[in-house]
Structures are given as C-alpha cells and as structure tokens.
C-alpha cells in the first residue's frame, strides 16, 4: 500500500509541484492550504510524512510542527520543512520544534524523492 504524505503550503503552484513529484514516485499525497488546514488533515487521517512550508497564513510551519509533536498520534511522524527560509536561526528553531529535516525552495524533484525515500522508505 502506498505511503501517504501531507503537503502543507499556501502556494497552489508549490502544492501542485510537490504532489506531481511525489505521486510520480508512487506516494499518495494529501494537500493542505495552511498550517491550520494541515493540522486538521493530519488529525483526520493516517499520515506517514508531513512536508510543510514555514510562512503561511493562520498557522505557520513551526507552530504546526510544535502542535503536531504535542499530539500522541504524530509524536514521531517525520516532518520535513520545505521553505524559502534558509537562515541558521530558522533551521535551529525548526530542529528545536521537532522537524526531521530542512529543504530550501525551490526543491529539486530528484532530491525530494531521495530524501522522502530515505525518511519513510
């Protein structure tokens, strides 16, 4: 059975590109338009990996990670940040919040698939 990835990003084009890339690699992809939407979808279904942006309306990526980590259901779910932010300060905050990895946009499709395979197989 294909593993499910939750892609959280307020940019429709990024969601489409992430979805296109991961689906072509054989994964199921659920899309969410911001942190709040992502949280609801993560609570609702079985998710193997979360791929989230940082700067989004309503709830940003770091808050989403902290909130998910506080849930028993997603305490150990791999969470990757996919963002334009690349400062060391932000990466440290991400690591402290419980992120599994940090990918800087724009992403290379091959690299994304490699990282996802490394994290969830």
């Amino acid at each position, binding site marked *: 059975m294909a593993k499910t990835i939750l892609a959280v990003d307020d940019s429709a084009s*990024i969601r489409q*590109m992430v979805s296109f890339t991961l689906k072509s690699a054989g994964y199921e992809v659920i899309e969410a338009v911001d942190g709040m939407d992502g949280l609801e979808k993560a609570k609702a279904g079985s998710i193997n990996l979360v791929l989230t942006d940082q700067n989004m309306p309503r709830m940003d990526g770091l808050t989403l990670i902290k909130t998910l980590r506080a849930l028993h259901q997603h305490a150990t779910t791999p969470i990757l940040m996919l963002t*334009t932010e690349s400062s060391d300060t932000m990466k440290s905050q991400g690591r402290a919040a419980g992120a599994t990895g*940090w990918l*800087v946009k*724009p992403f290379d499709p091959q690299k994304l698939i490699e990282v996802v395979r490394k994290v969830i197989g």
Partner: protein
Amino acid sequence: MQGSGVSTNNKIFLAGLPWSVLVVATLWASDPAARSLAVVFAVVVLVLGWMVVTSLFCCSAASSPGQLANARHDREIIERSSEAMLRVSAEFSTQLGEIRSEVRRAQDIFSEAVGHLIGSFQDINMHVQRQRQLGMAAQDGMPVAIEDSEQAINKMAAQEMTFVLAAKSDIEQAKQRIEAVNGCAGDTVGELNLIAGQVEAAVNKAVLSLQFQDVVTQLLGHVGRRLDLLDEVASDEQRLAEVLLDSGHPEATLRALDALRDHVDQLAQKLVTLKKGVDNNPVSQTGHAGGDVELF
C-alpha cells in the same frame, strides 16, 4: 518674532528716562536754586510720567502694527509649511497606494500565467507518459507478434512440404524482412525510451522552475510590508502637519512644539519597531538553483 525684544518706541522711552534724570541732576549740581521743593516735585512727577508712559508702550507693544505684521508673517510661514507637508504626505500616500495596487495586479497576472503554465506542463507530461507507455507496450508486443508469425509459417511449412520446397527462398526472404522490421522497431522504441529519459530530465527542470512563482510572491509580499511601513510614516507626517495647521496663533504653535517634538520621537520609535517586522526577508535566494537539503 513676537516677544523676542523691545520695539524702537520702547527703546526711546527707556533711554529718555535716564537722560532726563541726568539733565536734572546736572541742573541741581550747578544751580542751588534748582533744589527747591517745587522743582524736586516736578522732577518726581516727570520720572513717574516717564515710567507710566514706558510701561504703557511696553504693554501695548504686541498690538503695534509692526508686531502684528510680524505675527501675521510668522503665521503664514507656519501655514504654508503645514500645507506643503500635507500636500507632500497626501501625494506620498497616493503614490504608495498606486504602487501597492500595481504590485497586487502584477502578482495576479503572474499567478494566472504560472497557473496556465502548470496546466500546460501537466498536459504535456501526461501525453509524454502515454506515448512512453505505448512505446513500451509496442516493444513488449513486437517480438511476440513476430514469434507468432514465424511459428505460423513453420507450421504451414511442415504441413505442405511441396509448397515449402518450392517457396523456400520466398519464406526465407519474408523472415529476413520481418527480422529487419523487428530490428527497426526495436531501434525506434529504444530511441523513444531515450527521448522519454530526456523528457523526464526536462520535466524535473520544469518542476524546479515553476516554483519561482512562490519565491516571487513571497518577495512581493515583503515589498508590500515595506510599503505599509512607509504608509504609516506618511500618515503620521500628515497628522503632524494637521496639528501645526490647526494651531490658531504662532504663540500657540510655539507652545505646541513640545508636544510635536514628543510626537516626532514617538514616530521615530514606531519606525524602529515597524522596521523589525520587515528586517527579516523570507527570501534569500538570488537565483533559481535547487535549494539545500539537510536532515537533522
């Protein structure tokens, strides 16, 4: 400026008083007859008179035509400055509004164009995938079909030996032609697969490039936040100009200067606070290469 000094009339009166005292003192010193009680009384009255006249002129100095003209002139300068400030800040606000609206429009057009590009890209990719599948199916099916033909010919040849002997060379030629077609089809399918690989590499590049909309949108968002900051400054400057314009009298304006200075200080502090909000630019990329990957 009103209240800044003593007028010419007042100076005359102030100088006249000691001059009169000096003349009387000289008279007293030179002529003993001048020291009579009547003269002393007259001198006292004269001095008091000078004092009364001087104080009267000093008090009414503000109302003198010269002072009034000065005050009017000062008032006009303040009014003109305030009006100029109002005009500039209003124009500044208008321009900021225009820039914001143009940025928004550019963003909308850009998003729509990228949306169409992504749609086309997905369509093209879907067709390429379909073509590749067809090529692979053809490659898989071709040897089976040729093998079936060969088996049919062999079977037919076994049943009709006379026919085979007579048409042996024809059958051999047919088999050679079929093998040639098979080889040609194999080459074509191989080439198709090569093209499919190249298309896949191009698709990856397209996926990388089509993400630029998000990067540009975030940059434009940051530009918008900077415009908001400038708008705040323009609004505050407008309020400052209105306060200046509303003060009815130059004296009142002078009194209001302390309040205005406080206002400017607050504006400076506000700028520092607002600047913190736009200091962190979420986009540090200068080109469009793939970003770094780091696993914790």
